[in-house]
């Protein structure tokens, strides 16, 4: 377990900034104003990045490397080429700070949760002024985050699209908790 290097931090933040707005800096602000206040930090265990409280991370340093399975919230993993891949486990953090959102109608929830892209017919609401290829967080109509994806069209273009046209490419959905159960937390 180790902190991230500068390069790794940059890669991670660049990925998170795809989905979030300016409030992202709240992620790393100290919890209170005292000089030795507890704060959240990023820790790399093997190739996975965890978002964890500093006090817990310090405690976890007592656990042997082989015995430490996970700590805090897993945000994703670094690929062998040095890119960062967000996991569905990062959804609560992304949903808190999301910049662009897509609300899916109830008839579109299951197709999305089974790993499908979002078609126009299933979109209930949609953030205005969203550009193309921009990260969006997908919600159900009762504001439950379901996953996240990347827009296929800008909002203006999507209006002219036919109902079967794809408006959002899926990146991760809650169905992965079941589908990728074996590999999501270890391996």
């Amino acid at each position: 377990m180790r902190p991230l290097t500068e390069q790794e931090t940059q890669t991670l933040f660049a990925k998170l900034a795809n989905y979030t707005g300016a409030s992202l800096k709240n992620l790393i602000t100290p919890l209170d104003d005292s000089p030795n206040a507890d704060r959240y930090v990023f820790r790399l265990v093997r190739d996975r990045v965890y978002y964890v409280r500093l006090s817990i991370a310090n405690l976890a340093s007592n656990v042997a490397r082989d015995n430490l399975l996970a700590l805090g919230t897993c945000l994703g993993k670094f690929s062998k080429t040095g890119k960062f891949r967000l996991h569905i486990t990062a959804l609560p953090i992304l949903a808190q700070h999301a910049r662009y959102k897509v609300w899916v109608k109830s008839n579109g929830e299951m197709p999305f949760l089974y790993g499908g892209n979002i078609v126009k017919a299933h979109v209930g609401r949609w953030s205005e002024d969203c550009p193309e290829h921009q990260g969006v967080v997908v919600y159900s109509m009762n504001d439950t985050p379901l996953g996240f994806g990347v827009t296929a069209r800008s909002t203006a273009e999507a209006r002219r699209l036919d109902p079967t046209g794809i408006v959002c490419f899926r990146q991760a959905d809650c169905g992965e908790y079941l589908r990728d159960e074996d590999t999501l937390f270890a391996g």
Partner: protein
Amino acid sequence: MAPTRTVKNKHAANGSGIKNSKAARGPQSDGIVKAKKPGSKPTPTSAKQLTKKKKRKVYTEKELGIPKLNMITPVGVEKPKGKKKGKVFVDDTESMNTILAIVQAEKEGQIESKMIKARQLEQIREARRIEAEKKYEERQTKLEETKEGLRKKRKRPRTGEDETDAVVKEASVTGSKAKKPKKKVAFAE
């Protein structure tokens, strides 16, 4: 060992007038060789040699920092001089904040440029659409006009030269029939 000299005339004295005699050339000596004091006077030739040797310092390739020829050095293998070994971690809030600010500014710029581009494209598309609509309208009105024109053209001759037209029509319909009697076939009784 002292250098040996051949003495041509041993007995020639200094003042004897014999030119090449040993006694006449050098200072007066009794034939006793004095031992030289060590280090009293260094010979000039040896000093020159020493200075030359100092100047000719041989540098190794490592000292000069010349890259080795015909060798491929992978990126990870060649370590920069005077740099600390290992990774540099970022764990303090300040540096994290700076990195985050840089990244966010970059993303913001990207999104902004995307939006501007999208808006421009949208404007162009809108202008094209309006132009196309206008053209379609024009074409439609032209078509209507020509249609109207054709209708009027058709109507005019009927109203103006109604009688002649009717005669011509009759003639065209019945003219040929009237001239030629129809052939009839009947069964023989």
